[in-house]
């Protein structure tokens, strides 16, 4: 068995101003180092983006296990695809493209499974604990989000939660900008209707 590849730690060229931790410049250095085989840089990218990816996956899929699996799968695919990644694309929309695809596949599996559950199995009952208003409000939002078609939910989350620009969303979804604006608008209309109609009291 050949000797395992030794760690190739890429030391970025010294800069006059070192990039701020967590800044776009630092991330871009990390991406470049990871691309050249620096496993520590890749681990730092996972560290930087894991929680955001999980947030998106949790809003796209209804259970944590599926969300974690989708995120893990995303990073494995990112690692596999890094050699072909070109720096003129931004990393974030590229990452979200892979993540959104993983969530779509997992969502399709989840739907098939829930169809089976309807016939006989007893799903987990919601816990008995008392919810405060903020938790109840988040749960209502979760239920409302789950009623949206996948592409509307995805577009809404990318735009309003992940703060991606429409240009970045076009890279992430492969859809055109006008189509994306339409999806976001439809999602907003549906959410407003669902969340203000049933619970008029919440409309401050």
């Amino acid at each position, binding site marked *: 068995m050949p000797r395992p590849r030794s*760690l190739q730690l890429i030391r970025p060229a010294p800069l006059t101003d070192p990039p701020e931790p967590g800044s776009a410049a630092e991330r871009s250095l990390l991406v470049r180092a990871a691309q050249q085989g620096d*496993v520590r840089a890749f681990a730092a990218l996972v560290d930087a983006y894991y929680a955001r990816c*999980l947030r998106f996956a949790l809003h796209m899929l209804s259970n944590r296990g599926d969300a974690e699996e989708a995120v893990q799968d995303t*990073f494995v695919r990112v690692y*596999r695809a890094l050699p072909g990644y070109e720096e003129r694309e931004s990393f974030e929309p590229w990452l979200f493209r892979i993540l959104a695809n993983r969530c779509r596949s997992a969502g399709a599996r989840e739907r098939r499974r829930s169809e089976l559950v309807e016939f006989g199995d007893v799903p987990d009952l919601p816990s008995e604990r008392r919810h405060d208003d903020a938790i109840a409000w988040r749960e209502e939002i979760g239920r409302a989000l789950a009623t949206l078609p996948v592409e509307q939910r995805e577009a809404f989350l990318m735009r*309003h939660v992940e703060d991606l620009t429409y240009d970045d969303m076009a890279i992430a979804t492969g859809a055109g900008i006008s189509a994306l*604006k339409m999806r976001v608008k439809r999602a*907003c209309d549906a959410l407003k209707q669902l969340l203000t109609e049933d619970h008029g009291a919440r409309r401050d």
Partner: protein
Amino acid sequence: MHDETDETIVRIAAALRPLPDVDPAEKARVLVAVAAERERSRVAGIRAARRWRRVGALGALAAAGLVAAVWLRGRDVAAPTVAATSATTTAVGSTAPSSGVGARLARDDEGMKLKTVQLVLRAPAARTVSVVGDFNGWDAHANTMTRDPASGLWSHNVALRPGRHVYAFVVDDRVWLRDPRSPEATDEDFGRPGSVLLVGQP
């Protein structure tokens, strides 16, 4: 450049924005999966190169009218491996070491001579222990160890090709330990400790 300034949408977005709590073990699992992926692609590359060498050899042999199969079998056994080293085999005996390795001879499906190495870890309080290493793609489910209730020793046999291997133990699916009885690997994988096992030519 928010095109939606509707108050309800702003409130919905604000409720969705807090980041979820993340257990560090989750991120660790991602890195283990990525390390496994890297190992898979490396092994696939080596296998592909070997297949191509074989295809090339077959063509040449067919042209020469020789009996290819015999030649290939010989070639496979003689497939080059990393420079032979003496194995750091520690016999697992009644002295019950806290960890260690023992070895015996075997052969793999490609005809390569292998050594079965017994890996041992003393971890009486552990619920599960598995071995991860370059030989199993760092898969924490591929080689689970068995516990001896009397001694609290966990052991497992792995069949390894001669050469240098890097491995570690995963305790209770989350704690990554290097083998305290073997030399420490200097080429840490994803910042995780590993031990070096040198398997000599049988």
